[in-house]
């Protein structure tokens, strides 16, 4: 494997993704990420100068909605997905801006 993922990198990616990995999982993740980057390197061997980056596979543009209210009050259904609710709101651990 050409790409070696350091402990610091896997730690940092874990923080960004809000994942707490065991030592074992970290080793596996390092290996997986390394091989993914190897694959990217392989793709990078292609000369793509002058080729527009593609973000979508299908040549479809301009899918729009008109600015018309179509949804009513569906709070009960929405809140039924909440692990905990109070006063018509989702409850989350105390958070400050």
């Amino acid at each position, binding site marked *: 494997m050409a790409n070696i993922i350091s402990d610091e990198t896997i730690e*940092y990616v874990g*923080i*960004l993704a*809000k994942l707490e990995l065991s030592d074992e999982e970290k080793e596996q993740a390092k290996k997986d990420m390394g091989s993914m980057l190897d694959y990217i390197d392989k793709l990078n061997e292609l000369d793509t100068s002058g080729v527009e980056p593609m*973000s*979508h596979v*299908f040549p*479809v*543009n*301009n*899918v*729009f*909605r*008109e*600015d*018309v*209210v*179509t*949804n009513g*009050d*569906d*709070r009960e259904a*929405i*809140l039924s*997905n909440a692990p*905990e609710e*109070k*006063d*018509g*709101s*989702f*409850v*989350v*651990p*105390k*958070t*400050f*801006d």
Partner: protein
Amino acid sequence: MSKEYEVVIGLEVHVELATKTKIFCGCSTEFGGAPNTHTCPVCTGMPGSLPVLNKQVVEYAASVGIATNCKINQNCKFDRKNYFYPDNPQNYQISQLYQPICINGGVEIETEKGGKKTVGIHEIHMEEDAGKLIHDEWGESSLVDFNRSGVPLIEIVSEPDMRSADEVIAYLEKLRMIIQYLGASDCKLNEGSMRADVNLSVREKGASEFGTRTETKNLNSFKAITHAIENETARQIDIIESGGKVVQETRRWDDTKEYSYPMRSKEDAQDYRYFPEPDLVPIVISDEWLEDIKSRQPEFRDAKMARYAEEFDIPEYDIDIITGHKKLADIFEQTVALGANPKKVSNWLMVETMFLLKERGQSPEDVSFSPENLAKLIKLADSKTINNNVAKEVFAKIFDEDIDPEKYVADNGLGAVSDEGELKAVVEKVIAANPKSVEDIKAGKVKAMGFLVGQTMKEMKGKADPGTVNAILKEHFKEYM
């Protein structure tokens, strides 16, 4: 202080667009609904839900770009900005990084020295707003309301072209004016429909490199922006003077304590890992569509001022004030179109309306009365059906409740007494009751007549035309005039 410093400021301005629905779903954007009553699977980030772009958002964003001299990116796309925060249910915000809808624009502002300068606009992009967190004072939890989640925003990113708080305010006023004229937003800082983040650094005067900048957030009035700029400038100069280094960070302004403090810790590393949004297809703005948007641009302030000067016989001062707020200009034009005299309409707007707005702590955008009722009031005053004092009283009612003045005057018996016989009788009574004033007038002190006019008005409970009363008195004392 031995050295001279220069402050360098750039702004990120978020503006909530005035669409009826959210940017990616058919939920209402109406302000003030009960928590989570304007939500659906899309704006609460439920797995499997798919966003569909509101066409009006593209039109508003492009129209703001055109009005601020930007180049419109006719091929633009959305990107994902990834971060975790409870007000952001998808764990990403749909925004634009790589191909924002508008780039390379600028607006001209007037500087405090009376000159003009251009503040560059780096880009304008479209994005979605986050939900609102309500902190439980007593409990161990916070509550999330997603009514605001998915409300469309544009973010207007300026170049670091401003050099003082005054220039920042002038720039914001200019943006606000343009956007209000477009009807793309009401731009109320106090309600959060316009928000400004201040990027600020200081450097020694004459230096060519920028200093390290900080970003200050949570500024919801022009006053807060001005104070935060002064405060942050002084803080950075202090650090530099004492040999320290300014740290690049985001700071939060506390409006009551009037100081700012750093907001984020290392746990929220600013690494957003943007990538193209796979759930939304690219936007292609054809030449025809762009021309169509351009052809619908409204008459902006400068053009309006020139037209008013041409069309209406009102002073430049009036024109300046009325066109300073789209709302006032609209009411002015509509009332005049109903046949009212332009100068009289202007007077009601500039004097009484401004007075009542100030008294009620409101801004011109809050004006809610109809041009029809103002036109009727002017007609009532012109025909002397009501006198000026009554007109003011009725206007306050129109201002607050948009009442029909004709009906109100009739219902409350406020019509002026124009029957000369009845008025004369009252004047005679007042003359008889005030021999001292009569003596004064006879002795040549004509001013004493004013007192008699006042007494008559009082006797008539304000329902007489002071001009007519004056005329009757003059007639009575004509040999002493």
